């Protein structure tokens, strides 16, 4: 089995950024007809390795052998021509163009050597062929933006494969897909593997990796910890390899759920809040130290509810109050009352070119007003405090947030709100695109905030996370409340989401 020579082989790869060695003598190889998963926490070097292999970053040292030739590609385009295709985490297609145009982007077949304009019929033909190879039945004339994200993702793969690829890199292809869509994507990946492609697969979802990968390589702190056949690596050893921590400790922390039934003191009460075409009137309350979950499918209205409560979307009816006082002045009034909100997309929360320090003190400064500047020394003190206590990996407080990895960027958003010492903290998908290590850190942070009496509202598409963290879960379906799950378990939440519950008729609000 090992006789087969690798189609791609990287040896001793070193990549250095100012102050950080992102990759430290990493070896990696890929065989034809295999799916090779790369796993590791945020900041472990996965993205950097992908960037090196796809020609986006030039390493300081190391060799790359692709088939016969041994050289680094100096641009993603050159790597593509050499047969390495990459589908990145965020779909980097153009939503206003048609599917066909996107598939052929930058390679438009022109008439008369490009001077006769674009040959739309040739585009259709090539796009149809590329889509057919993946077993997709999409009309190439449809505008891309009108397709669901999952199909856009598959179009991205079709685009990557339009040329003669030998290696396909999939960077977090499933992060915005639901279970059904993921299954379809996997069928396509297996089909391509059958055609003899070597596929590099990156995902945070352990089950998906085991469902698809033949071999697993684990990176930690820029080093290759090891490569194993997936069948020979147990889940707990995988997690240990990724985090460098003992899994038993992590599990103990997860299980720690102090439901000490103290006196219930309502921190936030929401009464019939809604907005036309956004969300039907919804009611709930959260007590001090309680964790309330919002569950539901994508588009069920769970994020909209959070935004209505925080004032980021203006509700057209209903009443929101904290400790008896009504709040209806938009975001600023909510913040002043002690509410905090982290959106599901961290790019919506961060000023990427500004420093870690500036991003952390932002809410604090905004609430003081523009004229009363927080003294520099105080700013540094706050920033450094949270960099330490949340274990934010950055070279220093003045680095632009852009240079941090996803999980660490998420922690910067959290730090911004912790600095405000909120009474109610609303977290929309805090663990999205975040590795297990940071995920465990966020969960233990939630636990300690609850001990301090902070009310938590957690929105998640992962039912096991809700079941682990929350005391009660409000389920939403089709932009309306679908009932409160009081006795939290995965099956109870799932049943509510699916609407199979025997009590599905008695809806709140």
């Amino acid at each position, binding site marked *: 089995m090992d006789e087969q020579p690798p189609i791609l082989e990287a040896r001793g790869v070193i990549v250095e950024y100012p102050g950080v060695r992102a990759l430290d003598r990493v070896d990696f190889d890929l065989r034809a007809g295999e799916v090779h998963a790369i796993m590791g926490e945020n900041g472990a070097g996965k993205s950097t390795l992908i960037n090196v292999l796809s020609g986006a970053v030039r390493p300081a040292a190391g060799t790359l052998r692709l088939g016969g030739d041994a050289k680094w590609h100096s641009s993603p385009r050159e790597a593509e021509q050499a047969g390495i295709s990459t589908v990145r985490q965020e779909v980097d297609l153009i939503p206003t163009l048609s599917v066909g145009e996107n598939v052929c982007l930058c390679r438009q077949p022109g008439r008369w050597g490009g001077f006769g304009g674009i040959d739309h019929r040739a585009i259709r033909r090539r796009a149809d062929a590329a889509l057919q190879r993946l077993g997709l039945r999409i009309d190439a004339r449809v505008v891309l933006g009108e397709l669901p994200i999952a199909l856009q993702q598959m179009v991205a793969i079709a685009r990557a494969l339009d040329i003669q690829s030998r290696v396909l890199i999939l960077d977090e292809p499933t992060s915005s897909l639901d279970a059904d869509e993921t299954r379809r994507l996997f069928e396509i990946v297996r089909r391509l593997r059958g055609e003899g492609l070597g596929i590099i697969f990156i995902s945070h979802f352990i089950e998906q990796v085991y469902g698809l990968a033949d071999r697993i390589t684990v990176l930690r702190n820029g080093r290759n910890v090891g490569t194993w056949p997936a069948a020979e690596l147990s889940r707990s050893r995988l997690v240990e390899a990724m985090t460098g921590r003992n899994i038993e400790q992590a599990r103990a922390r997860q299980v720690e759920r102090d439901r000490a039934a103290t006196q219930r003191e309502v921190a936030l009460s929401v009464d019939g809040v809604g907005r036309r075409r956004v969300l039907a009137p919804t009611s709930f309350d959260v007590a001090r130290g309680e964790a309330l979950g919002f569950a539901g499918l994508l588009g069920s209205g769970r994020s909209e509810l959070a935004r209505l409560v925080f004032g980021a979307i203006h509700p057209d009816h209903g009443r929101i109050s904290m400790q008896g006082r009504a709040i209806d002045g938009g*975001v600023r009034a909510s913040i002043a009352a002690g509410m905090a909100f982290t959106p599901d997309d961290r790019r919506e929360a961060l000023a990427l*070119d500004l420093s870690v320090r500036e991003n952390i003190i932002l809410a604090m*400064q905004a*609430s003081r*007003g*523009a004229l009363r*500047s927080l003294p520099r020394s105080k700013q540094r003190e706050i920033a450094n405090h949270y960099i330490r206590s949340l274990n934010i990996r950055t070279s220093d407080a*003045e680095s632009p947030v852009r240079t941090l990895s996803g999980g660490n960027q998420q922690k910067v958003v959290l730090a911004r709100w912790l600095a405000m010492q909120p009474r109610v903290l609303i977290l929309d998908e805090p663990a999205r695109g975040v590795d297990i290590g940071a995920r465990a850190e966020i969960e233990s942070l939630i636990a300690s905030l609850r001990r301090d009496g902070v009310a938590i509202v957690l929105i998640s598409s992962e039912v096991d996370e809700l079941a682990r963290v929350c005391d009660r879960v409000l389920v939403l379906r089709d932009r309306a409340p679908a009932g409160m799950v009081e006795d939290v378990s995965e099956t109870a939440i799932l049943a509510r989401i699916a609407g199979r519950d025997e009590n599905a008729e008695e809806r709140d609000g």
Partner: protein
Amino acid sequence: MDKKASLASRIGPALLPLCGIVLLIIINIIGDLLRDPSPGIFGPGAFLHIEWRAGVGLIGAVIDILNHSSKIIILALGMSIVIATRGIDLSVGSIMAVAGAIAATLTVSGMPALAAIGIALAASIACGVWNGALVAGLRLQPFVATLVLMVAGRGIAQMITDGQVVTFQDPLLAYLGNGRPAWLPLPMPLLIALALLAMTALVTRRTAIGMLIEVVGDNPRAARLSGVRAGTIIAGAYAFSGLCAGVAGLIAASNIKAADPHHAGLMLELSAIFAVVVGGGSLSGGRFSLLGAALGGVLMQTLTATMYARNVSAEVAPLPVAMIILLVCIAGSPAAREWWRSRRRGVPV
């Protein structure tokens, strides 16, 4: 460490226009020496010659350039704030015409100059608030929103002066653009520009206004979700830009002791935008550098002055000006920066 780093990030953008200015000065020195080597580099008649004349103060080609660049510097201050919020203000040239027209017409009709100046500046701020309302309130694209006033402003200015060029004799208004205070031997426009630069830097960097402007420009949604009054900040930026345009307009009118609604500030919005961009401001918003923008303004004026000094005829002057602008832009482009960085580190690209 932190202080040094942040100081470097403020000074850094100013280096590029500074290099451009030095380059032009060298061109002028060499040009002068080739024509007539007798004055040397600092002697009388040389480009860098600065002399003290009793009763007037410091005079020389360099002082003239700085003096004439003050209008662009002042416009660039407002423009760099607006650009930092992801905006652009095309109307500053027209607002200059409006301010000049108001001040001139009012003084000619007998109003005290101070009151006329006050009304002219208030009107300029009102123009800026109008722009700000369109951008922050109605969420029009800044380019379109300010284009409206760019076109309408000259019409308003002509309405005020009845389509005429209004000349005035008021000594105080004339002093703004031509005088020199007894206690400081420099031209008034330059002093006004320096004072505005210092005040703007102080206000934006001593308070949190500067940082909030940068956040709004970098990511307006993040700013709003963190409780920043993004609309107020954006509207404020345009109001400030309007004020700056008003000051520049008063200086322009004062320079020629007349308000010319057709030609005052014509095309200066483009010079101001260039000054900001060459000084390190990104049109996609975020970080801004006031010092960089001001030096960008000086660079623009040095260019014009060099064309005169080298006897380039006015008809062909735009071509060499454009070439030098192109050169500076290439030197400051991300690609060039990348190249420099890789050379310094010695890593092959």
